[in-house]
């Protein structure tokens, strides 16, 4: 870590680091979504399914783990779903990174605030709230 000798604080800014975390998450999500969509379109060039009729998604495309295993098995829709999960997890990674970066700077109020937000996000992400 680079240290600013004058202030005794790291030379990087929290904003720069958070920006990199977000850009990395977005980049990975785009890459996986594009691969999955390309694969999907190669085998589904016919008429689109009728989305006016509601049929809940199958179990293997509901959670991250289930989608992961289905994508590893060559399911293009599951790979697209993994891309969406990566996008959803980007704000989570951003909040985690904020907690760590504020911790390094010993700004404890912001560490606690970030952890509180993270705890509330985990309620939704875990699938405990449906």
């Amino acid at each position, binding site marked *: 870590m680079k240290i600013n000798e004058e202030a005794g604080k790291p030379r990087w800014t*929290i*904003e*720069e680091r*958070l*920006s*990199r975390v*977000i*850009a990395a*998450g*977005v980049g990975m*999500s*785009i890459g996986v*979504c*594009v691969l*999955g*969509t390309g694969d*999907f379109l190669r085998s*589904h*060039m*016919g*008429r*689109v*399914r009728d*989305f*006016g*009729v*509601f049929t*809940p*998604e*199958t*179990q293997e*495309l*509901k*959670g991250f783990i289930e989608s992961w295993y289905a994508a590893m098995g060559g399911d293009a*829709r599951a790979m*697209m*779903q993994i*891309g*969406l999960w990566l*996008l*959803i*997890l*980007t*704000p*989570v990674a*951003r909040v985690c990174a*904020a907690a760590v970066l*504020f911790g390094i700077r010993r700004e404890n109020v*912001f560490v606690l*605030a970030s952890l*509180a*937000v993270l705890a*509330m*996000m985990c*309620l*939704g*992400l875990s*699938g405990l*709230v*449906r």
Partner: protein
Amino acid sequence: MTALTFMILVFGGSIAAGVLGALTGLGGGVIIIPLLVLLLGVDLRYAIGASLLAVVATSCGSAAAFVRVGFTNVRVAVVLEVLAAAGAVAGAILAQYTPNAVIAAVFGGVLLYTAATTWRPPKPIEAGAAPDPLAMRLNLGGAYPGSHGPVPYMPGRVPQAMGVMFGAGVLSALVGIGSGIVKVFAMDRLMRLPFKVSTTTSNFMIGVTAAASVAVYMHRGLVVPEVCVPVAMGALLGSFIGARVLPKVRTNVLRMIFAGVVAFAGVQMIIKGAGGVL
């Protein structure tokens, strides 16, 4: 319609949603639902999940640029998003006991009032007025990139804004949209932050609450990749464009765009309250 045509149409519409969302700090979800439901005949349950994904995409796509160049105030965002997230949890519990149609109609009226007032800038903080003690203590001040270099600012009325932010979280959980609007309103009118700081900081925050909500939709099986991937990718591309355009747009133009989108959202809410779809 072929799968490719459908995805291209959704992708194109979502680009517009992303641009608008990045400029106004409202996420763009307000465009996605009418696009999918009214124009493309997609079931509303799929459209809501896709609209939340558009909010996450717009937030992430524009945040990387806005945070790096200094428009977004990360400290203000972290402080306020605790209250917004707590409000969202409270709203999710309250949702079981409250008549959502009535709330939607009342909130629609509030949005129309917000649209009517936001196009004018708030009165500036009087010179020599004491800064907000909480803002000073938490070091919430900042400087955003102006045309002649960094422009410093210090937020005011932080406790009041925190209270409104809790209400924003409750409302977003009860009626689905509107959280970004209340966030921008609180930062612009109460904290008197510069308008571009308010919209970009709102954009930064809305991704967090939308991500938690859309995960619930995924676990319920309401997120279909054929609809949501083009929405997310279009909104991302739109938000990249919006992030490039925002520094060049004059604030009064931005206020007028914001007021127009809020008025449209207000009408949507009132129709929703009356039992319609839009």
